[in-house]
């Protein structure tokens, strides 16, 4: 009987793209850019952006930004650090841009967001990985405001 399990392993391009996505998740707090994500994937920036969108349905730039916003939102919910501190802690350098992006994405300012979500002890058991995946905001209209408040 011939072997049913081909001995040669095939690594899809998406596996390399995932390294770029993982870099965003691991080092969002540093001043990394899409170029760094592409380098982690071992692909040119244009190729990486194309393959990232194919694999995950959004741009790497949008992914990195929403990861940062999600982490900043978690800091606002779970710590008493200032809005500026939350901004710098997630690798962003302009508090003005941060506040604008945050407000566009969450439909309210960072300060209002913090006031709306007091620390929730009942959520304490939910693992970080779940928070990160489910808590990251949708951002299909990057740099555009369609007027509707996101979820």
């Amino acid at each position: 009987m011939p072997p049913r399990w081909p001995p040669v392993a095939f690594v899809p391009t998406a596996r390399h793209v995932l390294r770029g996505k993982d870099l965003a998740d691991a080092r969002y707090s540093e001043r990394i850019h899409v170029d760094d994500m592409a380098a982690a994937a071992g692909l040119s920036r244009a190729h990486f952006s194309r393959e990232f969108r194919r694999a995950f349905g959004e741009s790497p730039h949008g992914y990195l930004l929403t990861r940062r916003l999600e982490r900043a939102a978690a800091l606002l919910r779970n710590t008493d650090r200032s809005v500026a501190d939350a901004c710098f802690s997630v690798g962003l350098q302009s508090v003005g841009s941060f506040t604008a992006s945050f407000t566009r994405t969450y439909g309210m300012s960072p300060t209002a967001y913090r006031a709306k979500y007091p620390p929730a002890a009942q959520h304490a058991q939910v693992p970080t990985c779940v928070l990160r995946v489910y808590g990251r905001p949708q951002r299909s209209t990057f740099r555009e405001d369609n007027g509707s408040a996101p979820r």
Partner: protein
Amino acid sequence: MMRIANVNVWVHDQDEALAFYTDKLGWEVRADATLPELGDYRWLTVGPPGQKDVAVVLNAIPGPEVMDEDSAGQIRALMAKGWLGSVFLQTDDCRAVYEELKARGVEFTEAPEERPYGIDSGFRDPSGNSIRLTEVKEEFSAV
């Protein structure tokens, strides 16, 4: 009474997976049997030292004689994108194990971070499967 015995994890290459789970994670091989009568199917299981009654099956994605190419392709694609699943590991000392694994070349996607339930971190195996490594506070521990 029921117990969890083996849990399947698809891998893109059994040899590479085996090297990762043994050399880098420090797990032991529980079974490694290649069966000619099953078209050289390789039953390969590994598990952490000290937990003899649970093993992870490192299963290769079968060829077209066993699984249609469309299904195999979907598994391969989901695995590569990191969406296929997670293994949740617990440890008594997340930071120490993190340092140990990092020194052996494990690339963490999340460094240890304080959470209300303990200290949590995460990395991937070579196939893209997500593995969590968590030190759970006593009051949140199921045991």
